[in-house]
């Protein structure tokens, strides 16, 4: 935990100008996509382009000004990446709305609702940046946030407010609003894991014995990993949600590995996960279906439950090809849930592989920036938190894009910032606020302390102490 910035021979600049430049480009992506949707679907520039563009610009300017005010050294690339993805997602949702309206679907206001959620997300982003001036104060909330996270995960089981939607029991309904508590829980669990691991990593890292080539951890240290495994399995079996279960367990494993630098944990965790997946495959019918749809999608095309959704998405992406059919010229309405889990297939169909690659690259850059923040962060808690938040993004994007493109069995997770979904969008904006806060602390030049030097007189036994 040294001051890597100075070790590497440079201090970071503020780069707020670069951020502004990238934000202008990101706005061009978002508003340009909105205009292209209007031109492609209706043949004219949308009438509300100015109002829509103005609103989007206001949100982006608000977040940029916030960063300038309270986190001047924060990473310059994260916010533009998020703004571009969010803007593109809004435009694609608007494109789906126009088609859903035309074919008489009840729900055709996804883009409008998503814009409201984005506004709420930006408000929470600004609030987090202003209220949380030092991420290390979150370390005090280690156990509180752990408990809160687990309570949130259990909420959907409660009889009155919990509810199942599309087979997965991950929703709660309060006063007419539906909400996915798991999205908030993952942020809280990252805080809890970081706080716990930064204190206990020595015990987890050093104790244990060596079997063959692998350092196995001590039996009594297995407690937390078993507890986390139990919670993941509970989500899988009771909530019927393979994606979240994978996300939570994978997140814990990544953080454990990063904290202890011991591959032994990966072996133990991998074995546990394999055993759990095997058990789930054998006993949970849903999981078995998912595997079959993945291996032989065309065999289950017109069955219910079947792989129609996955196959239609593949047809769409195949038809889209390298540069796509153009916004408005595809048939994304053939894919159920094209607005949430399968939004990437819509993009693949209408904007082609070129746009999908750009989007995957954007996610890659977000993860890269988060890991870079972890590398240069000066305190262990910040490091672990940045790694955990990076792992959330990486796992979530891998699971959902891998599922949509048929690389791995399909599991329901939202595509961060692109998919329609209020809880996910709001939670992800807060995640970005936390990352920017850590990066502001990490990139801020170290306080200049004069070296201890009591003059040349007694320099024989007075060494110049360098900042370490």
């Amino acid at each position, binding site marked *: *935990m040294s*001051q890597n910035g*100075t070790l590497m*021979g*440079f*201090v*970071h*600049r503020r*780069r707020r100008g*670069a951020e502004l*430049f*990238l934000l202008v*480009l*990101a706005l*061009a*992506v978002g508003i*340009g*996509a909105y205009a*292209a949707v209007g*031109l*492609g679907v209706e*043949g004219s520039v949308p009438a509300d382009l100015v109002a829509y563009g103005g609103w989007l610009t206001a949100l982006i300017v608000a977040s940029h000004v916030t960063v300038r005010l309270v986190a001047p050294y924060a990473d*310059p*690339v994260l916010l*533009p*990446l998020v703004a*571009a993805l969010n803007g*593109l997602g809004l435009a694609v949702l608007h494109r789906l709305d126009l088609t859903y309206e035309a074919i008489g679907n009840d729900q055709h206001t996804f883009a409008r609702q998503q814009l409201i959620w984005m506004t709420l997300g930006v408000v929470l982003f600004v609030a987090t940046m202003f209220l949380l001036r030092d991420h290390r104060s979150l370390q005090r909330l280690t156990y509180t946030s752990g408990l809160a996270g687990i309570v949130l995960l259990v909420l959907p089981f409660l009889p009155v407010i919990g509810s199942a939607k599309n087979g997965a029991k991950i929703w709660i309904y309060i006063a007419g609003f539906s909400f996915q508590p798991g999205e908030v829980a993952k942020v809280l669990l990252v805080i809890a894991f970081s706080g716990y691991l930064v204190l206990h990593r020595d015990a987890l890292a050093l104790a244990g014995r060596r079997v063959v080539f692998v350092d196995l951890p001590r039996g009594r240290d297995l407690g937390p990993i078993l507890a986390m495994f139990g919670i993941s399995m509970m989500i899988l079996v009771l909530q019927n949600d393979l994606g979240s279960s994978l996300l939570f367990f994978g997140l814990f494993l990544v953080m454990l590995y990063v904290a202890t630098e011991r591959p032994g944990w990966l072996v133990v965790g991998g074995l546990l996960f394999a055993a759990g997946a095997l058990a789930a495959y054998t006993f949970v019918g849903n999981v078995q279906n998912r595997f079959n749809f993945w291996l032989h999608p065309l065999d289950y095309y017109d069955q219910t439950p079947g792989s129609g959704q996955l196959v239609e998405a593949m047809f769409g992406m195949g038809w889209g090809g390298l*540069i*796509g059919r*153009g*916004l*408005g*010229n595809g048939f994304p309405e053939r894919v159920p849930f094209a607005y949430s889990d399968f939004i990437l297939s819509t993009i693949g169909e209408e*904007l082609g592989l*070129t*746009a999908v690659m*750009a989007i995957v*690259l*954007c996610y890659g*850059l977000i993860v*890269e920036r988060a890991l870079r923040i972890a590398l240069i962060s*000066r*305190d*262990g808690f910040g490091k672990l938190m940045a790694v955990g938040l990076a792992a959330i993004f990486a796992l979530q994007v891998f699971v959902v894009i891998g599922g949509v493109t048929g690389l791995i069995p399909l599991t329901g997770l939202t595509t961060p910032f692109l998919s329609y979904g209020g809880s996910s969008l709001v939670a992800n904006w807060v995640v970005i606020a936390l990352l920017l806060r850590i990066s502001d602390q990490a990139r801020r*030049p*170290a*306080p*200049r*302390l*004069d*070296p*201890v030097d*009591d003059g040349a007189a*007694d320099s024989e*036994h*007075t060494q110049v*102490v360098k*900042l*370490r």
Partner: protein
Amino acid sequence: MSELTLFLIRMAFLAILWIFVLSAISVIRSDMFGARVPETARGGAPAPAGRKASGKPRKPRRGAPTHLLVVEGAEAGARAELADAPLLIGRGSDAAIKLDDDYVSTRHARVAASGDEWFVEDLGSTNGTYVGPVRITQPTTIGLGVQVRVGKTILELRK
């Protein structure tokens, strides 16, 4: 709207998307290689000299701490003026506050200013320096009345 126009619109949008991604990458690149090298790394002897000259006659602001006081331990009551900063704390003879405490290292910690803020920094001591309940690993800001523990001794900034 003709087929060609739609094609051009699509290509223009894909171009904007990629221009954005490539600009983001180039900002990351310049962030890595184009960063400013600090003066100390360039062998900057003049910088500390200049700072010392300008920093010496600094008048303490109202409400700013003026001295470091030992509030608990064998040397309770001993104090050092912050005007002499940076202050070395330890058992050694060159320490500004010389502590007779077996759990304190010869050169244990030091207190120094950066701007208006005061920092305490551990100098690789055996038993560590604590600000509140937390063992510090990097220079840490301390305000008035924050308890800094070295060995069995507790120090505070006082007005």
